[in-house]
């Protein structure tokens, strides 16, 4: 999923300060899964902002609503009719959601309540770990399903580097060395032969794109 974290409250409060009528919109997908932008979090944020407004004697009227997804037009459309009654939308969607909503409703300022972080998994309750950087050229089959781009601090394709010790990355003792995992993973699977290959430089254009990346599927239109 895409993970995100709520911005510090003072930052959000500054962001909403020009507005008296605010629609707070959550998203039931990724950000709900990582406990930052779902219905519960919308309730929490709404309550905190209303209390803050009272404490600082500012006017603030809010309404809370959570869409199933904020990145798909069919769901965003549910805000039609409702959104005109508000001066701004405080979105608890990821960056993709915030912008998707903004494109459907260009006259209303859509404000981001979250800082979008990374693609990752829920490793256990309350722990989310990055494991994909969207490089557009997945070769996990060669590395025992351990991604060298997202999980190696130097994105080496022919690792490990000299700083790997005791299975840890040199950057921090809590960070496992991805290449230690690759090597031991391939050894377990009896595929160390895959490491004999000198992997050539990556095609980063698949990750960086020209402008923003896109996918077009005519069969889906």
């Amino acid at each position, binding site marked *: 999923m895409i993970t995100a974290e709520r911005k510090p409250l003072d930052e959000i409060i500054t962001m909403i300060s020009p507005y008296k009528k605010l629609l707070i919109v959550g998203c039931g997908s990724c950000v709900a899964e990582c406990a930052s932008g779902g219905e519960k979090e919308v309730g929490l944020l709404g309550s905190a902002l209303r209390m803050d407004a009272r404490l600082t004697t500012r006017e603030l009227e809010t309404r809370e609503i959570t869409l199933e997804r904020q990145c798909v037009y069919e769901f965003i459309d549910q805000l039609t009719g409702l959104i005109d009654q508000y001066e701004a939308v405080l979105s608890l969607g990821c960056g993709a959601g915030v912008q998707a909503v903004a494109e459907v409703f260009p006259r209303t300022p859509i404000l981001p309540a979250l800082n979008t972080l990374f693609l990752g998994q829920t490793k256990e309750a309350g722990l989310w770990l990055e494991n994909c950087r969207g490089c557009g050229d997945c070769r996990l089959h060669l590395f025992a399903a351990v991604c060298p781009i997202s999980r190696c601090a130097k994105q080496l394709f022919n690792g*490990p580097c000299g700083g790997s010790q005791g299975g*840890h990355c*040199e*950057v921090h003792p809590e960070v496992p060395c991805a290449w230690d995992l690759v090597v031991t993973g391939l050894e377990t699977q009896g595929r160390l032969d895959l490491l004999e290959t*000198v992997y050539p430089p990556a095609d980063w254009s698949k990750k960086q794109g020209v402008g923003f990346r896109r996918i077009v599927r005519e069969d889906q239109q």
Partner: protein
Amino acid sequence: MRRESQLKKVLTAGHFAVTAECGPPKGADPESVIKKGRLLKGSVDSVNVTDNQTGVVRLCSLAACALLKQEGLDPVLQMVTRDRNRIALQSDILGASALGIRNILCLSGDHQSFGNQPQSLGVFDLDSIQLISTVHQMRDDSQILGGEALSQGPDLFIGAAANPFADPFFYRVIRMAKKVRAGAEFIQTQCIYNLDRFKEWMSQVRDRGLHDQVYILGGLTPLKSAKMAEYMGSQVAGMDIPEKLVARMKGVPPKEQRREGLKICVETIQALREIEGVKGIHLMAIEWEEVVPEIVKEAGLLPRPN
């Protein structure tokens, strides 16, 4: 300027080579580099210049190598992939060769979070092995990555680093073999304190016949104090300092610890000369370059071949 690499000459002639390291200043002052060069001249065959080591901004390796070249030394350009993309790397390789620099050491580089610019973007467009391969391709095929022809290829003796003390231990030799396959012609290892482990690694190297395919230079850093020994052993990733060495340093009064550290260094050099497959030493006396001539002399490695 087509002068040959002195390091390559010495190694191919079968001599036991001596290289040292020179750290550039945190400033635009060329004098300190020149001074260090003059200190080392005559005691070593070549001098490595580090490339923004530990992610700390310093006078660039390329410029420092050019300054050393002017002083009549044979510099080894250390090049990390942390700071530059392939366009800049290949460009600098051409520039180095044009300036008469004849040796290059290809590294990934310490992570940027360690240095004084932790907010910078770590580039890592290539890794060290891909860089070795690139230099090799530019030199032998006169081509850049992608195949386009160069008007003139660079003339560089290609080196790489190896760390016999990092993990996973069993894999270290396999990785060095990869570097050799990619085009590495000489190897400088991480500094050696644990001779047993190093011998074990060398025996694995010989089992694969690698000692005949690449010139291996054992790395050394003389210990200045017992504190330094303790710090390096526990805080620096990829470093292995046996307890008995730390104890030896501690067992000597502080005023004599430098001398003891130098003694250990010379003893290690003598041990390395006995190991089959070790073709030289690489002295990394960081911010203590003045001690190199003394070590080389006491180890009986003077005079250097012409």
